């Protein structure tokens, strides 16, 4: 995100704090897709993800006056989304997920080997990215897709910066293992 857009986001938040509905529409239009995708990758349910973004932006409407600008608005949005997503996961009874397991269980609904048979490494990579645990998925997405710095990721997830670095390293290692199991050698590790 450019510095100009970040400054513009701050201005929008200031206007939202004053009850400016139009500013809210602009901010929503600018960020709702990324918020949705981040939420969807965490909860894996489109309906829940759509509900999430309504909740996230409603929180923004209510809390805009308390935003101090210490982080980028997009970072703030992702932190709220993550919190809401984890809350939604805890509420979801039929998913057989408990608080501790939610971040650790891998999704094995799809078999990467099926993808490999298509001899499409790109597809296999995307499939394996989907196999990562929620904990690993979120850090991969935050760094690669949402382009957050080490410091920003640490703020969103609420862990030390060194842990951010090592967690991503082990997420990548896990991804390599999944690909290897699917018959794809990439030369690392």
């Amino acid at each position, binding site marked *: 995100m450019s510095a100009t857009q970040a400054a513009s986001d701050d201005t929008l938040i200031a206007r939202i704090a004053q009850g400016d509905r139009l500013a809210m*529409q602009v901010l929503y239009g600018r960020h709702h897709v990324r918020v949705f995708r981040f939420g969807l990758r965490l909860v894996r349910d489109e309906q829940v993800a759509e509900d999430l973004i309504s909740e996230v*932006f409603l929180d923004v409407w209510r809390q805009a006056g308390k935003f101090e600008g210490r982080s980028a608005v997009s970072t703030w949005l992702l932190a709220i989304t993550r919190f809401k997503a984890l809350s939604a996961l805890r509420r979801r009874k039929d998913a057989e997920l408990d608080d501790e397991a939610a971040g650790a269980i891998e999704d094995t609904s799809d078999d990467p080997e099926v993808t490999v048979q298509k001899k499409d490494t790109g597809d296999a*990579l995307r499939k394996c990215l989907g196999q990562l645990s929620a904990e690993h998925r979120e850090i991969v997405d935050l760094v690669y897709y949402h382009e957050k710095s080490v410091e920003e990721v640490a703020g969103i997830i609420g862990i030390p910066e060194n842990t951010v670095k090592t967690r991503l*390293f082990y997420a990548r290692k896990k991804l390599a293992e999944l690909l290897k199991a699917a018959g794809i050698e990439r030369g*690392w590790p």
Partner: protein
Amino acid sequence: MMAASKKIVEQEPSDIELLLPWHAAGTLSARDARKVEEALARDPELARQYAVIREEYAGTIELNESLGAPSTRAMQKLFAAIDAEPARKPSASQSLATRFSSLFSSLSPRTLAWSASLGAFVLVLQAGIIAGVLMDNRPSTFQTASLSMNEQSITRDLSAAPPPRALVRFAADAHVGDVTALLDKYQASIVGGAKGGMFRLQFANGSMSKDEFANLLSRLQNEKAVSLAVATP
């Protein structure tokens, strides 16, 4: 040299290695990015790992972009909820500057231009009124001379009786020294002139009677350096 990436699997990854994903995403500081670039240039294994990371980076973007976008239902739900929220009052902590800023930003450029013009007109009008009041209060005796010496006479005029004055034309052959000596002798000072060669002299002797003043003029008239001395009109 032991390559930085050699340690990765068996041991803890190196600091540079840990930064590679952020380097791929372009979110490192300039200093860290330079360090990573230097390490990549000298370590082929690290460079290979970086190539793998770039594939992961591209794959993650493709995966996220394939997720689509939410339906308009989400937005409708959000704004319905916002409309149901209680009306928001301006924060008490909102600064005066912010309120002024909001006020002016809400005005159209034309309105702002007219407001500025009106403000300027009011200022000029006010300045005119003040100047007029000051001019009216000035005593009429101050309207004669404009030399700085007049300021001295202003304070004197505020006393009970005005000091005596005379119009004097000095002799054509009078030297500066003669005039200076004359002024010393009569304790006089030049306070105005020289219109038509006449200088206005003011005497420091304070008030004097008509006879005394006539006598003074007579003595002046007899001075060698003076060709004419008369009372001020």
